[in-house]
C-alpha cells in the first residue's frame, strides 16, 4: 500500500528519480499553462464572447469576490498568488477521477512546498504594504512578551497548512484502498465522490487561509476594525 505518490517511481538514473509526484505536477502545470494560453488567445471585449472566455471570467470573478470577502480590499494585487494557488490545488484534487492519476497533493513534499510559498508570501505582502519597520513591529503586538509566541504561531500554522492538505488527500486515497479490499463493488465509488468534495473544500480552505494570513499581515487600519466591532455590537 502506497502512503504517498512519492513511492511510485517511473524512471531512475542514479540518484535522480522521476516519481509520480513530480511527473503529475509537471502534467498539471502543462495542462494549466496550455489551457490558459488557449483560452486567452482571442479575448473579445464585445458582447459576443467565446464560451471558454465566459467560463474563465466566471472563475476569475468568483475568486476575486472571495478574496475581497476575506478582507483584502484590493484583490487584484493578490489574485496572481492566491488564484493560482487555488487553481493548482483544485485541479490537482479534481483530476483524481482520471484512472492512473495520483494526486500530487497527496504527497507531503508538494503540500509543504505550497505552505512554504504562503510562509514567504505573507511577509512579502506585509512588508510591501506596511513597510519593513511596521511589519516587524506587528510581531510585538499586543505586548513585547508575545514575540516568541507570534513567531511560533507563524511556524506552526505553516506546518498545519501542509499537514491538513496532505492528510485529507492521503486519507481519501487510503479509504478507497481499504474499501476496495472489504467491499469492492459500490462503496469505493461513493467514497471517491466524497473525495472529490473533500478535495474541492480543501483547496478552498487552503486558499482562504492563505488569504486570511495575508490579510492579517497587511491590515493597516486598526481604527477601522474597532469601528466595525462597535457596529456589530450595536446591531446585536
Amino acid at each position, binding site marked *: 500500500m502506497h502512503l504517498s505518490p512519492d513511492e511510485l517511481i517511473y524512471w531512475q538514473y542514479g540518484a535522480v528519480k522521476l516519481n509520480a509526484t513530480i511527473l503529475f505536477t509537471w502534467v498539471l502545470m502543462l495542462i494549466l499553462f496550455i489551457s490558459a494560453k488557449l483560452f486567452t488567445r482571442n479575448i473579445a471585449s464585445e458582447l459576443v464572447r467565446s464560451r471558454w472566455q465566459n467560463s474563465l471570467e466566471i472563475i476569475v470573478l468568483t475568486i476575486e469576490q472571495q478574496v475581497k470577502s476575506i478582507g483584502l480590499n484590493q484583490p487584484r494585487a493578490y489574485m496572481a498568488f492566491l488564484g493560482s494557488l487555488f487553481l493548482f490545488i483544485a485541479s490537482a484534487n479534481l483530476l483524481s477521477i482520471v484512472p492512473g492519476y495520483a494526486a500530487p497533493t497527496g504527497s507531503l513534499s508538494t503540500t509543504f512546498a505550497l505552505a512554504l510559498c504562503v510562509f514567504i508570501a505573507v511577509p512579502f505582502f506585509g512588508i510591501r504594504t506596511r513597510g519593513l519597520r511596521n511589519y516587524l513591529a506587528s510581531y510585538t503586538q499586543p505586548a513585547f512578551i508575545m514575540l516568541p509566541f507570534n513567531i511560533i504561531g507563524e511556524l506552526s500554522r505553516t506546518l498545519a497548512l501542509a499537514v491538513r492538505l496532505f492528510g*485529507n488527500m*492521503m486519507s481519501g486515497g487510503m479509504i478507497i484502498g481499504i474499501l476496495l479490499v472489504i467491499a469492492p463493488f459500490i462503496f469505493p465509488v461513493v467514497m471517491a465522490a466524497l473525495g472529490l468534495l473533500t478535495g474541492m473544500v480543501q483547496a478552498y480552505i487552503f486558499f482562504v487561509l492563505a488569504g486570511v494570513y495575508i490579510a492579517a499581515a497587511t491590515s493597516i487600519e486598526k481604527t477601522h476594525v474597532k469601528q466595525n466591532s462597535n457596529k456589530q455590537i450595536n446591531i446585536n
Partner: protein
Amino acid sequence: MDSLTIIGMVSIITAGITMAIGSIGPAIAEGRAVAAALSAMAQQPDASSTITRTLFVGLAMIESTAIYCFVLSMILLFTNPFWSYFIENSTRG
C-alpha cells in the same frame, strides 16, 4: 518478548487509541457546529449561503484535528521509524 514484538504491539495499540481518542473531540465539535449552523439558518434563511460557506470551512478545519491523528496512526502502522530501525539492526547483526 523481543523488542520487535513489543514495538509492533505498542504501535498497533497506540494507533487504535490515537484514532479513538482523536476522533471524539472533532466529532463533538462538528456536531455542535452543524447544530449551531442549522439553528442560525432556521432563524435567518437569507444568510444561508454565507452560513453554509463558513460552516464548510469551519468543519474542514475541525476535521483537520482528526486528520492529524489519522496521519500519526498511519505513520505508526506503515512507516514506523522505530520498527524499521530495529529491523535494520537485526538484519545487520
